[in-house]
């Protein structure tokens, strides 16, 4: 039991922080309830997918600066193709867009592996490439989403307090990540992020694993783009503020930049924390500029605290 707590200490801490924030929110806004929860979940959905995308490559020891641009490409592709499409066509179109996401991510990864140019440089370049592609597909916000897809993420399901967007997020992440995490591929992703030489010696194909990690990143980014298009009902070619937000949530979520440590659960909780903080500050009608200062301070404080606690724990262990 103690070991379980020790291993998942970071996630438990984040859960506690999230609960505290919900209590605080009720305090600030006594009538915060089901509808507030629903709009929070819906607003968080694209951020959450962007965070999942970023988390996978960071765990693998990399980074992908093109996440937001890939979301834009996926979002506008869906909006253009679905404009006037029938309900039945929506499913193959969604799969097509997801496939495009995988291809974009795999291309990022392949470029890094083949050219040996640092990941941060390659994906910075691809940020501009995908941004241009998105604008070529759609010059100005437009297109449409098939209505039933919009209904899939708007509203609640089963219980009046359970947002559909949240359920979609959990299902999508679970269906994709859980099998990968338990497969050799998942272990290999952790392995190359943790110690590339040791991984190589253990017989892991480093290049292929890295490309796979970026492909998964592209897949999640495509989901984020779709979520955006579904919830707004049109395509937006200019990438939103998802890049920095995803890095922030990944770091706050206990994934170490540099690789090997962390999981998807922490960053997903972290992304809700960061959104909820923003919502609370808006409810308190705090100046938006102050809001970003608060968000930044929370990140530094939490990560620093975590570091101090880890050092403490380490000391006890060696003593």
């Amino acid at each position: 039991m103690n070991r379980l707590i020790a291993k998942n200490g970071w996630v438990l801490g984040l859960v506690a922080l999230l609960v505290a924030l919900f209590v605080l929110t009720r305090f600030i806004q006594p009538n915060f309830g089901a509808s507030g929860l629903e709009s929070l979940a819906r607003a968080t959905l694209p951020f959450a997918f962007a965070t999942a995308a970023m988390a996978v490559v960071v765990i693998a020891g990399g980074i992908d600066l093109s996440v937001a641009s890939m979301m834009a490409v996926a979002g506008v592709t869906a909006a253009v193709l679905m404009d006037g499409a029938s309900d039945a066509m929506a499913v193959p179109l969604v799969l097509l867009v997801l496939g495009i996401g995988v291809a974009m991510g795999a291309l990022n990864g392949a470029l890094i592996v083949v050219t040996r140019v640092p990941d941060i440089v390659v994906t910075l370049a691809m940020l501009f490439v995908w941004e241009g592609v998105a604008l070529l597909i759609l010059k100005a916000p437009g297109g449409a989403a098939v209505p039933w897809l919009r209904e899939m993420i708007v509203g609640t399901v089963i219980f009046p307090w359970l947002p559909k967007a949240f359920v979609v997020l959990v299902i999508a992440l679970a269906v994709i990540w859980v099998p990968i995490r338990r497969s050799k591929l998942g272990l290999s992703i952790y392995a190359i992020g943790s110690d590339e030489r040791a991984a190589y010696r253990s017989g892991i194909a480093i290049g292929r694993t890295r490309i796979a990690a970026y492909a998964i990143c592209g897949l999640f980014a495509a989901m984020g783009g779709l979520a955006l298009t579904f919830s707004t009902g049109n395509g937006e070619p200019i990438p939103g503020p998802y890049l920095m937000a995803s890095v922030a949530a990944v770091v706050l979520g206990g994934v170490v930049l540099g690789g090997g440590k962390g999981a998807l659960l922490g960053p997903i909780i972290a992304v809700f924390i960061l959104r909820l903080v923003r919502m609370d500050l808006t409810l308190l009608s705090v100046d938006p500029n102050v809001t970003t200062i608060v968000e930044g301070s929370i990140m530094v404080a939490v990560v620093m605290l975590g570091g101090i606690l880890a050092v403490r724990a380490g000391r006890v262990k060696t003593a």
Partner: protein
Amino acid sequence: MVEPEGRLLDAQGVSKRFGAVVALKDASLTIDRGEIVALMGANGAGKSTFVKILTGALKADTGHVRIRGEERRVGSPAEARRSGLVPVYQEPSLIPDLDVADNLRLGGTPVEAFQHWVAELGIEGLRLDDMIGQLPLATLRILDLARALAAEPDVLLLDEMTAALPTDLVEKVLKTVRKQADAGQAVIYISHRFSEIAEICDRATVLRDGQTVGDLPIEAGVEEKVVELMLGAALGDGPTAAGAGAATAQANTRLRVKNLSAGTKLADVSLDLHRGEVLGVVALEGQGQDELFDVLAGMIRPTGGAVELEGTPLSFSHPADAIKAGMTFVPGDRADGLLMERSVRENLALPLLARPGKWGAIRMREEARRVDDAVDRMQIDRRAMGEVQRLSGGNQQKVTIGRWLASGVDILLLFDPTRGIDVRTKRQIYLLVRELAEQGASVLYYTSELAEVPAACDRAAVIFNGRLVDVVEAADADEQTLMRAAYGLSAAEAVPA
């Protein structure tokens, strides 16, 4: 060609070049079922390149590697594993951020077999959900070995397996390996310890200058022959001792190291470094010399013992403290000590400006004079003054050492300063070091090349297995004496049975 019955591995005529450097010319190694073969060679003999080729981490230029008579064109460690050769490398190759069970799954290791070997090798209380990163180094070495054994390889390759282990575990490992060999497994055993080789090996294959120069059965007195083979023609033709400072340097101790221990390697080393002396440090790879230099440079803290400067005890909590005390460390990796993108001038002047506690205006004329002087004296190539990274390795090294000529230095710690440098530049570096000593500096000079000791040093301290085993006058330090000492064999000692 028909392979003899029971031949598991047959490597012949293996060569490998890196650019202009020939790492391997003609290496060969055979091993039969049930045999333990020691692969030996001095620093730079090509041992590690050969190991990388055998294990698939590198591809040979020519030659072949056959396993069980099957030609192998190995491209990766994974393929080498599949063909039946499983290595245990010098450093742990388990993933630190995964637990034991995940590491086993990653390599497809059967858990029960693994646990059997872990118990056999004497590790108790290991849990499958222990994180690798939190286990002690010795345990990790054993887990590496247990993982390799659980794969039931035809050929097991152990590279310095016992280096980080306490004695009781070494015994267990040796026993287990011998038992496996008796049961029919073949083992390639790489170690700097003759006693272990004598205890379990059947044959020794010796590499020198990238060539296999001998294949001897292990029997009484084999150490002598192995040392001779490792040294080859180099025996006895080293330059004579410089010795100029030796007479004046006596009895004027500047730096005293007393019973120093640090990390897992360095244990109880005592040294005296005199004024105006160049004291050589001789050791095989990983015998604790890295830790010794790291402690003196203030980069790690010792776990025991003391360092005294002119009789005053020193304790460093930061490299800046060591620098303030007058200790100057020149790392083996030149990139660690130079600003590669900046000019020779700036690099030479850096210690003049960067003295702790010195701020304010730089006296440009004075600086320029000193730097020009240093460039002349060191004969640094003037064509590439703009960026240090465009200088050759030898010229870069001259800059790292020569900057102390410009600024003056009390104690200079040189860690393998001539690695990968041409002969002419080496000479110039010896002269530089000598000049610094004559100015009154005390120099601690670790070198991986034994032939350098008489050329560059006054005395030499030999470290083996973390302990000081001998201090010899450079004049008496021919390579054979040093090599024997570096392998922990004293002249008087009987051959371990």
